């Protein structure tokens, strides 16, 4: 069965070209556009094989304000309150040492800085899956 990746990312215009090699390789990639939608789709996040997570995310109409780095706060909620242990790779522009430390405390499988080559992203995703399969 093909693996499911959820990419929580609001810049929809970058999604298609970036996930092209992943789809070509048989992965199922689903997009969630904002934190509100993410909170509403906890079951999908729990069952996914991997979450790709942006840091700057809109809250969505009527959604909860997750502060300066909504992606980080969302991950905190997923890990601490919802006990979702799905592997997470952060896909962001922000290179902030403090944020990195805080993200690592929430257990992530890597941080990729945008812009990234899709071929490189696929390599990293493959490595994450290989790591979990080897366990």
């Amino acid at each position: 069965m093909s693996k499911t990746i959820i990419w929580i990312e609001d810049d929809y215009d970058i999604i298609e070209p970036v996930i092209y090699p992943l789809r070509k390789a048989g992965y199922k990639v689903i997009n969630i556009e904002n934190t509100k939608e993410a909170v509403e789709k906890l079951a999908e996040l729990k069952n996914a094989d991997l979450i790709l997570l942006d840091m700057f995310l809109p809250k969505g109409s009527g959604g909860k304000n997750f502060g300066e780095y909504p992606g980080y706060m969302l991950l905190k909620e997923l890990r601490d309150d919802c006990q979702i242990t799905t592997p997470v790779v952060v896909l962001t522009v922000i290179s902030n040492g403090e944020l990195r430390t805080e993200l690592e405390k929430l257990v992530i499988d890597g941080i990729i800085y945008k812009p990234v080559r899709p071929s490189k992203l696929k390599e990293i995703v493959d490595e994450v899956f290989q790591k979990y399969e080897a366990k």
Partner: protein
Amino acid sequence: MAKKTVNSHQEFFRALMEIVAENVPVPIGLYQTKNSEIEEVIPESSRAKYVSHCNLIQSFNGGKQQCQKDQLERAKNSLAANKDLSQDCCWAGIYNESRLIKIDRKPFALLVYGGGKVTTTVDKQESLRKHEEAVKLLGLTEEQARELRNSLREINDSSISKDGFLKIQKVFTNASHLISELEERQNQAKYIAERNSHEIATRLQAVIAEADNLVSQINVGEITEAKRTALSVLNSAESLNTVAQNLGNYLETYRFRRESLNSLVLKSIKTYEAEANRKEVQIRYNLIPPYDLEVSKNHLQYALNNLIQNAIKYSFRGKKDHQRFINIKGQPEPRFYPEGRFYRLKITNYGVGILPDEYEEIFKDGFQGQLTENEYRTGSGKGLSFVKRIIEEHNGTIEVESIPQSDDKAERKPYLTRFIIRLPYSQK
């Protein structure tokens, strides 16, 4: 960079405290709350002015630690009490006076000096009571207790005049205001830079992804012109990312020359065509000649790029049965036609709007419209302030209007937003 500035703020306060401490007869200290901890600044010259009672009690085992703990605790309480002036007795029986430094009516720091005058019997009794408690707490011998009591009696009331202390308080209040404003500006600049960087990297991400996919689609080992071009695009985009990361304000010198506005508009459309296609928004344009204007080409191109990119970004996504458009129309300003003094350009889109009371605000640095709040967090809020500055440097004007529309097929309430730019044909 932020860290360095914070350190220089601390250094500034320390230097200021040194100057004050050297010129007053009593020890003086500054206390500030930082991340729910109290930070203490006591200059060396102040420590040298500690009365012998302080030095003696600190020489006993545990005395120094208790002094430190007591000072911080009292400072914390005084900051929490939010009282402009307070006088209290330390654990060892010495009175201190403190004045609050406020910013926007909120406690920012506490200025404390030793040697508050003990004038009433009640004060004297309190001082003695504290002294006895200190003796017990430290477990002093009778001889040590006697020595300590004698040192307490010997304290000469020395103080700073009320006016003197008020002046010191004023200096610190003004300095604190300045520091606080600097910190706020610094945070704002950092936030804007971060959002800008995000925006650029996102656009570059699309380029890099398309180019990388193209390279991958061409058979391994096969070097074709297309592959070379794709690789070149990929590499250029990646080097541009490095430049973008170092990007500061757009400060290039204005160079006015006669240019075709039509060509500049076409170039911007070309730049954002793929983005519009991905969103299924069609860009329609029609510029009526004459459109050769005296402009600073790079600046105006930059302004047009911003306006067209915004128009796409804030357009609702097109649907199969519901085509979306961005209209770019230009014509010589009718009032002066055919003399031709001004050219008028209108860029219209259909989607997320701007509220009427934001028409002026939208051109301010860092501003983001209320209606965009739930949809687009990543805009820098800087683009339109640059656009306005550029248009004004061209002796032109820019206005915006955004009118709510009724459309059953729209996913949210749509607005027809129109930017109207007037540019003079000549800069003379």
